[in-house]
């Protein structure tokens, strides 16, 4: 068995007016939590759909657990939560789940047992009401999301792909989802999720890939990525804010390349040839009262802004990238 859960090589997908994914290669280690990051329209959903063989790449190859993704039965090991969620509205919850489990090759009896367990676990089967017997459209939005999540995991997949899983979740459900991802990893499963919220990715992912305009910008383990981009960032706190000549110094292009200003806290990316010591000296010279001056590794958010920039969002594309 391969050590890679996913191995994408030189994949290209063109749509009528634009290229959604150009020559994308990436490797997702087995048992890792992997973040597919990028602005809206970057090609995340297209990439995920190609992994799932929902749409075919124009060229390139995709393997799941070492075998081509269109091999019979391999997709039975994959669970998928699409960004646009939906279930058969007029169908009983239990029957929808049974149907989706059967499509993944789970036997009827086995599936029924698992459905009971999951309904119990997500408190959809309470003494007052068993929501499993209700029709989907009788459920609240939150409950429907739970059902959809159950459907993703019901067949106990080894690879779970979540497309923008946090969109539309309230804080409680978002936390439940994070817990679920952690538990999946503990059980040796591979989790891939796409997001444009870097904060989540930074906390949860072992590895990430940032794509923009269908092109891979960078990828690798989160720690390694941050290290690569480290040492050029300064975290600065001032007691009085940017008074006196401080503002002018922070806007000096020979010292500062990029500035993230939050009144009293500044995240600074140094200019290519700038020395952090000369920056510190000049700040002291103008009498700034410094509370913190620290060379730091940049956050994923910083890296993202630095590498992708505001121009990373291709115009005219919807959120189905």
């Amino acid at each position, binding site marked *: 068995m391969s050590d890679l859960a996913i191995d994408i090589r030189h994949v290209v997908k063109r749509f009528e007016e634009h290229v959604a994914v150009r020559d994308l290669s990436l490797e997702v280690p087995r048992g890792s939590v992997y973040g597919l990051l990028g602005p809206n329209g970057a090609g995340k959903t297209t990439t995920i*759909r190609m992994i799932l*063989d*929902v*749409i075919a790449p124009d060229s390139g190859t995709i393997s799941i657990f070492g075998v081509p993704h269109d091999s019979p039965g391999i*997709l039975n090991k994959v669970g998928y939560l*699409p960004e646009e969620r*939906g279930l058969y*509205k007029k169908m009983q919850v239990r*029957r929808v789940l049974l149907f989706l489990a059967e*499509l993944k090759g789970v036997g009827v009896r086995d599936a029924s047992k698992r459905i009971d367990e999951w309904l119990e676990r997500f408190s959809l089967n309470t003494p007052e009401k068993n929501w499993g017997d209700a029709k989907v459209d009788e459920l609240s939005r939150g409950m429907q999301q739970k059902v959809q999540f159950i459907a993703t995991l019901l067949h106990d997949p080894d690879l779970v792909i979540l497309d923008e899983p946090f969109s539309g979740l309230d804080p409680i459900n978002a936390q439940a989802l994070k817990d679920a991802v952690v538990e999946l990893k503990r059980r040796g499963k591979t989790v891939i999720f796409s997001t444009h919220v870097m904060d989540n990715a930074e906390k949860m992912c072992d590895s990430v890939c940032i794509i923009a305009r269908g092109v891979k910008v960078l990828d690798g383990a989160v720690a390694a990525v941050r290290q690569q981009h480290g040492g050029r960032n300064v975290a600065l706190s001032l007691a009085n804010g940017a008074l006196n000549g401080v503002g002018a110094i922070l806007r000096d292009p020979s010292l500062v390349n990029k500035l993230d200003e939050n009144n009293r806290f500044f995240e600074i990316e140094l200019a290519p040839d700038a020395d952090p010591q000369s920056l510190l000296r000049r700040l002291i010279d103008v009498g700034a009262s410094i509370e913190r001056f620290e060379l730091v590794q940049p956050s994923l958010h910083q890296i993202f802004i630095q590498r992708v920039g505001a121009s990373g969002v291709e115009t005219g594309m919807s959120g189905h990238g």
Partner: protein
Amino acid sequence: MDNKIWVVAKREYLERVRSRWFIAMTLLVPALMAGAFLFPIWMAARGSVSNQLGHIRILDATGTGLGERIAKAMYADSTLGITAGDSLAPRVEVVTPTQLPAKEQAAIAEVQLRDHIAGVLSLTDSSIAGQSARYAGRNASNISDMDKLRTIVRQSAMMVRLEHEGVRPEIVNDLARSNMRLNTDRVTETGKSGSGTAGLFVGIIVGVLLFMSIIFHGQNILRGVLEEKATRVAEVVLSSVKPESLLAGKVLGVGAVGLTQQAAWLGIATYLTNFLAPIVMKNIAAKGGAAAAANAAAASPIAGALGGISLTVIGIALAYFLVGFVFYACLYAAAGSMVNSEQEAQQAATPVMFLLISTWLMVNPVLVNPTSRLAVVLSWLPWSSPIIMPMRIGLTSVSPLEVAGSLVVAIIGCVAAVWLSARIYRVGMLMYGKKPTFAEVAKWIRYA
């Protein structure tokens, strides 16, 4: 084959069969059909000869005893329900031709005044000649009454003439009692098969059932596909099953629903005609007019039609249903996958509806002349043959070679429709936004 097709088909089948709509349609249609068959019989029995016909006055100016013979014939006819000693029985008055106009006037005045006389029948020499008689009465607009009266007068006039010409009275009486019934048999190249009217009704029933099933379940598929697309459930499903398998499962499942429904319709209709009809008949008979009811029932097409459906015809109709259903179901599914709303769906389905409706418009010409060039051409075209060919087989004799040939053409058309639809469906299911133009759809077909 992909066992996921069966999982999809099972869902489609169970969810539809469980729906209230399906149950209502399955029970209501045969009830309506049985009603449509029984109602005319009931009407025929009810609307048959009224009990007024016996209560007439006959003015006989022929001097040949024609009036007496008519009265006798009326007594003899059980459908008129005249009993001996009935005060309202037909009364005959022999008059001279010169008296007739005045007597007639008086009698008509009496009809106007008094309920118990329904009308006045005036007989002249011309009646004996078999040319004309005159009737004036309240029931003159009752077609059954007038038919009956005309028959009785004509037969009686004939009897009188025969007696005049010296034919023995026993023979004349014997002729008067004879009741000729015409039994029809349809002759085809392979021999005698079924009755003529039965064939016509088999043809109509098969055609109507196929057309209705295709339209009803085709629309069902259209809505189902649209729902999967609109609720975005398609994306989850398509991550587990290939679009071709999803399409195939859907068509199979809904097709099985159609077959189940037809089997239920046939079963219920057979039950209703075989068990319920006799009860209705008995009721009608109990209210009098038993013979009329029996006559109406015998003349009714159902008895013959059901007897006229052979296993071969059922087999061929089934084959055409399957081919035709798959053909149209795939096109409906493709139409549903192209669009995002019910409104757009009806637009996208217009070409499919056009094929169906244009076929339907040809049903009548084919019924009238099932051997015409038009009928032959239509039974070869893959989109019309599933409806037209089974009808033609019911109506006339079609050579087995022609049936086989047209089936092969229909199957080729069906495969082409499946191929085309699968490509449109594959791309369409994940396309949201504006309705695609035909040029775009053509591109999908090329690149899918």
